[in-house]
């Protein structure tokens, strides 16, 4: 059984973990400094501009682009529903008028006399940021988000698949050198973060997903199994957006590799606690980021968290 050691990956039985939770664009921060938050609490919310639907009025009405403004039944800023009549040709002596209905709901943002094109802006899209780890808000970033701090146990892995999730830590094997197979997965693992030892098989991942597990953590995985699970070959280790119904965390690497004994011991010690997990990996040129972490709240030990992959989130 191979073993791996990757300098730079952090495994800590007690650390101060700070999660910087930010909106992609400015919005409303819903928490205040000093406030206690749970992992699933929303800390900030905003709306981003809706999607744009271009409507090629000139070509749809078969008129020159310069004629389009004169044929409009709506004006800039008007809200229209899908199917509303938005333009009508004059026809010849009032006959043969042609009407055009809106293909989508939205607000008329622009109409061009050069191209004869109308831009409809859809409804704003809500965006929320969760606290991600249970802890205390130590800093509010006005209009952007907040920093949540927690006294935690922290485990960082080498590769993850899938996004953030929260669940109860559940050991599926008894030794770090034990392979995690489908037979180790039970229906009692629903909503759990299932922890294996060495290599995890594709069948085990599927079994965990079918059992409704939130995430699965193990030492290694075969490239062939990962391809099987994803349905494609992972070309670069930039992950986190996969939609496979479960988050996967690999702590050591590819192949038959046992989970580091210390990592396994920490996870075992905190079995039954709630954890947050994130499989987003941002390895790439110029990035110092590492992958998955498991953060366990050490004060009173109610909770275990596996937060975001970015090492910048960790300030100890």
């Amino acid at each position, binding site marked *: 059984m191979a073993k791996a050691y990757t300098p730079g990956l952090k495994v800590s039985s007690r650390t101060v973990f700070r999660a910087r939770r930010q909106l992609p664009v400015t919005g409303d921060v819903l928490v205040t400094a000093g406030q206690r938050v749970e992992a699933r609490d929303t800390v900030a919310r905003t709306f981003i501009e809706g*999607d*744009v639907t*271009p409507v090629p009025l000139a070509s749809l009405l078969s008129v020159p682009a310069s004629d389009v403004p004169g044929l409009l039944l709506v004006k800039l800023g008007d809200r229209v529903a899908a199917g509303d009549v938005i333009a009508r040709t004059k026809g010849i002596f009032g006959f043969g008028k042609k009407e055009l209905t809106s293909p989508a709901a939205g607000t008329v943002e622009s109409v*061009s006399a050069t*191209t004869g094109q109308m831009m409809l802006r859809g409804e704003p899209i809500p965006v929320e940021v969760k606290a991600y780890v249970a802890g205390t808000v130590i800093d509010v970033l006005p209009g952007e988000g907040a920093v949540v701090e927690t006294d935690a146990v922290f485990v960082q892995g080498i590769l993850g698949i899938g996004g953030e999730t929260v669940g109860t830590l559940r050991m599926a094997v008894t030794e770090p050198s034990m392979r995690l197979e489908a037979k180790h997965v039970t229906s009692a693992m629903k909503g759990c973060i299932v922890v294996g030892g060495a290599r995890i098989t594709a069948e085990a991942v599927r079994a965990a997903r079918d059992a409704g597990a939130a995430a699965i953590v193990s030492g290694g995985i075969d*490239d062939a199994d990962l391809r099987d699970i994803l349905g494609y070959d992972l070309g670069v*280790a930039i992950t986190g957006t996969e939609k496979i119904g479960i988050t996967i965390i690999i702590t050591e*690497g590819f192949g038959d590799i046992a989970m580091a004994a210390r990592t396994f011991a920490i996870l075992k010690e905190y079995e039954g606690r709630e954890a947050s997990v994130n499989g987003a990996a941002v390895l790439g040129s*110029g990035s110092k980021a590492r992958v998955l972490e498991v953060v366990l709240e050490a004060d009173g030990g109610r909770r275990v968290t596996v937060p975001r992959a970015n090492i910048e989130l960790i300030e100890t």
Partner: protein
Amino acid sequence: MTSHGHAAKPAIDLTKLRYILATDCGSTTTKAILIEKIGDSWRQTQRAEAPTTVEEPFADVTIGVSNALTEIGELAGRRFIADDGTIIRRKGADDPEGCDIYISTSSAGGGLQMVVAGVVAQMTAASAKRAALGAGAIVMDTIASNDKRKPYERIQRIRELRPDMVLISGGTDGGNIQQVVQIAEQIAPAKPRPRFGGEYELPVIFAGNREAAPQVRAIFGERGEKGFDLSVVDNLRPTLEEENLGPARDRIHDVFLEHVMAHAPGYDRLIAWSDAPIMPTPGAVGDILQRIAERDGLNAVCVDIGGATTDVFSVFGGTFNRTVSANLGMSYSISNVCAEAGMQNVLRWVHVAMDERELRNRVKNKMIRPTTIPQTAEALVFEQAVAREALRLAYAQHKEFATTLKGVQQQRTVGDLFAQSASGQSIVDDMHLDLLVASGGVLSHAPRMEETAAMLVDSFEPQGFTQLAKDSIFMMPHLGVLASVHADAAMEVFERDCLVRLGWSVAAKGEGRWGKRCFSYRVSGAVTASGELACGDVALVRVGPEQEVEVHVEPAGGFDLGNGPGKSVTRRVKGGTVGILFDARGRPLALPENEADRRAAVARWAKAWGVLK
């Protein structure tokens, strides 16, 4: 070459220069070199590197620069960095410390990332892409009216990207304005968010039909008004027959300095320190290659294979092209190379049996632990096999991109009609490639020069006589920016210290049954050798870097070594650290399909070229 807008600096008296410091601030490492005037010659004398400090906790690129230059000073026995961390300038001829000029390139923070747009993908959008790539950018996406995406898909895609700037082209001057305005109308409402956050006004460069400029101005607003900073430059495709990339490329460099660099941590200081505009690293490499090709009348190709990407630069007939194969690299992207090439294609270069499952896991482990290096001979063979495929794919992509202008109507004679020549043909001509330069870890740091030479020949498949070289310590970026200040010094250092001449590839174009005569060779002069090669054979004649020889080759009918099928060629050449690699495997290079035959052939070639003992 280009001249870029830059804060006014005192004119440099080239005759008084003696110490030149240059850095290349990469994503992970800042590489510094010292170039000194020794007697009447310019030489690169010292090299040092330090971790780049753009990221937290330092967030100041000049710290890494100071560290690297401090080390250079220690190596040179001359102080270049003052106690306050700034660069010391030499005050007079006898001053025992300081440099005369300091220059730099940068690709830190992911380099320069752009979205380009045009009306027709193969015409104005292709020209826009060439301008961006030539300026040293990474092109995140190319938007065009005929890119097979629906308008809303295009808008959605633009929304997801976070470019440093956008370049819009489209329409010839005086031609249709509707289509280019339509493209602008799709980009503006998408409101692409710049990488550097909300305060940053996204620079948009318009280099399309000049008559569409007023409408484009109306769409993007005056300075800052709609969150964009629009600049209008000359049309990069004023007519279909003409490509005018200079103004757009210069503006990209200016915007790079004024916006992108200005927002990167510590770059305001770095810009103030520098005696020449800071250039994007690949842009500087392209500049020096163009200068060399122009001076010596060469067709040249330079490849830089990195962990994530592979850059290919070429100059053929004076026309420069650069491509970035974004997901072909030897660490972060190694898995993608295997996926794109197919494991079978990778393994065809391996002469021993390997377990595919174990190899696939090894590839993935390299991807997630990018800094690991091969620990066994077998692992090295495999890594070099992957490199061959990465280079082959990157070169194929380059050939597809480096074409004559598409959309040009050609006047044809009756003869041309038979030749079926068309616009949009690749200008990369392997038979007329004079110089092939390698750089990047897997090529530069191969344990033996023979391995570098063999990788180049196997993946690029040069034809006829082609000189092989490698960039000794990756100083082409430094020399590219130096050339903008002191071209002679840059050229001199390029010749003397930058290039390590590996030797020559002498390869026959054509196909023949293995074992059948391909060509005979005779080497005379400083080294004497002769032989006859059958199809499928290779040979190596050791000719040292300072040795000059005459090479005479006589191909069999159907094989071409530069003068046409069956015609002999005689050339005088200087050798290299490897020598002259004769290659009778034919072009295109085909390996035996039978597994045992293939392994035997690969092992035979490796032994003949000195790769295997």
